[in-house]
């Protein structure tokens, strides 16, 4: 193997890791929601796309760098998620899976088409000043925007870990996830915790959207793809496991980047789906999932 090839491979892996961090943050939202409520958010990719559009609009009309509009986007998404859970999803918590699926599918359809109505079908992207900056580490070159996005994703994920391990509410949510009945017995307001959880999950994916727009242009049609991608990541990492979601994000990020290098670009997601099938069969609880999460 030539030096050149190894270098481009290393380059691809590095790029995949950086993108993978943002993927991981997106998947984290899905994983948190499932882990606590056992509801699969079929509208996840749609929420991601909305996050991308809002950050795009803030930049386009207000000149705000997505890294700065991100906290606002996250807060807004928290509020949307909270209300959505309270108003629409809560009554479906104990209903059969296919009904939850249909509800979220309906929400997804509405959301993605609202994007289409407001932003049109054309792809939208933003041109940051840092677009062409890069950091060099030995022979490797890192795009500045990707580095910033990945760094922000790491910060947000860390904050989330702190939230779940250090705060009262975070601990209460974990308790409710482990033992629904027990949580009710000790007097936790499970409905409220669920709403907060959905808000937190939504905030994750909204933030991931704000970061993603700095890397990739957005169209409404990306939504379904992101939903699938988030599923793949979360299943590979382990549904309900937070570290699993991040690890899955990195894995898929890297495998996409490497497959894009070695194979036809159009074949790159075949890799991810192949990985999904293998994981589902050999370790359905995911790489880091617990056995009981099935």
């Amino acid at each position, binding site marked *: 193997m030539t030096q050149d090839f190894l270098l481009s491979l290393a380059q691809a892996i590095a790029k995949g890791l950086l993108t993978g961090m943002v993927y991981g943050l997106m998947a984290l939202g899905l994983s948190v929601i499932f882990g606590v409520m056992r509801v699969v958010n079929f509208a996840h990719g749609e929420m991601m796309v909305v996050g991308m559009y809002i950050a795009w609009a803030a930049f386009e009309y207000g000149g705000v760098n997505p890294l700065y509009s991100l906290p606002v986007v996250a807060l807004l998404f928290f509020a949307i998620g909270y209300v959505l859970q309270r108003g*629409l999803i809560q009554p479906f918590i104990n209903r059969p*899976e296919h009904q939850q699926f249909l509800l979220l599918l309906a929400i997804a359809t509405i959301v993605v088409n609202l994007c289409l*109505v407001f932003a049109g079908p054309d792809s939208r992207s933003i041109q940051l000043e840092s677009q062409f900056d890069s950091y060099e580490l030995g022979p490797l070159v890192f795009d500045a925007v990707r580095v910033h996005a990945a760094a922000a994703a790491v910060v947000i994920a860390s904050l989330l870990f702190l939230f779940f391990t250090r705060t009262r509410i975070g601990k209460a949510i974990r308790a409710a996830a482990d033992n629904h009945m027990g949580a009710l017995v000790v007097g936790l307001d499970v409905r409220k915790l669920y709403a907060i959880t959905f808000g937190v999950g939504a905030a994750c994916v909204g933030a991931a959207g704000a970061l993603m727009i700095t890397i990739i242009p957005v169209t409404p049609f990306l939504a379904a793809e992101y939903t*699938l991608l988030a599923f793949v990541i979360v299943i590979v990492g382990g549904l309900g496991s937070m570290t699993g979601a991040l690890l899955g994000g990195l894995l898929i990020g890297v495998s996409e980047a490497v497959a894009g290098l070695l194979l036809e670009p159009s074949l790159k997601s*075949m890799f991810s789906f*192949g990985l999904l099938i293998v994981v589902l069969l050999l370790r359905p609880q995911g790489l880091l999932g617990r056995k009981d999460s099935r």
Partner: protein
Amino acid sequence: MSRRAIVTLAVLAVLLLAAPKLLGGYALSVLILVLYFAYVGQAWNIMMGFAGQLSLGHALYAGLGGYIAAGLYTHYGIGPWAGVFAAVAAAVAAGSIVGYLGFRFSLAGVYFALLTIAFAEFTRIGFDNWPWAGGSGGMFLKVERNVSDLANLRGGSEMFYYLILAMAAGILVLCRWLLESRLGRYWLAIREDAEAAQAVGVPVFRCKMAAVTISAALTALAGVWNAFYYNNLFPETAFAMGRSIEITLSPIIGGLGTLFGPIVGAVVLTGLGEIFTSASDQFHLPGLKQIFYGLALMLIVMYRPAGIWPWLARHLGFEERPK
């Protein structure tokens, strides 16, 4: 079924048979769509409504069926009536693989659904890169005007109407027969509680395999019909997750596990779709139709979670027997 229901069915049957003479081109095309969704919904309902296995990848079977029959016809001149056997065989093989892996490794619920999605997506990408099938550029059947060649399924919408009508009627009879058979009852038992079913002697794995293969075979037939009706196939649409989801909607909206649910669901959903299309055309806003559609889905699942048909049947005095 009540007497009233039988009379209604008979009147409906006569109207349906006469429809091409009574309806204009547009109305007939809508009716064709209704029958198509009723048919595929019925096929999917066998798996989910009867046996309780959630498949969100049924586009795989329809797509495979369509591609194989269309490919045999365009490449080798093998007509669809022969090609359909290969199409069904391929779908059954695919269904067996998905089923075997899913059921052997006892994936349930969401996990099984994700496996079905993954296989459909996997196949989509494969077809995108398969020259025989035309790759992402798609596969096209030669359109011949003013012919009516039933042997090669080249003809106008009237031919395809009667074909899909026969298929929809046939699958209704088949599903009824299945449901009244031992296998059908075993499926219901598995849907309700697989462990308890196995304890009373239901060979769960074999019955689930029967459900997925029968459902896949029937779905492949719809795929063949679809390919020859529309004359084109693209991996992007034939294997799309959206296509799979479309298949699931009629039975869920109409009433999962019921015989008439998929039909009622197809009527309601196609009807709503057409109404919203013409309504939103006046505003020239792409996406508006889908927003209405999403809202309608949401309202139905919120207020009629068991589907429209059970509720309708009660109010019209058709009352399906308790199952």
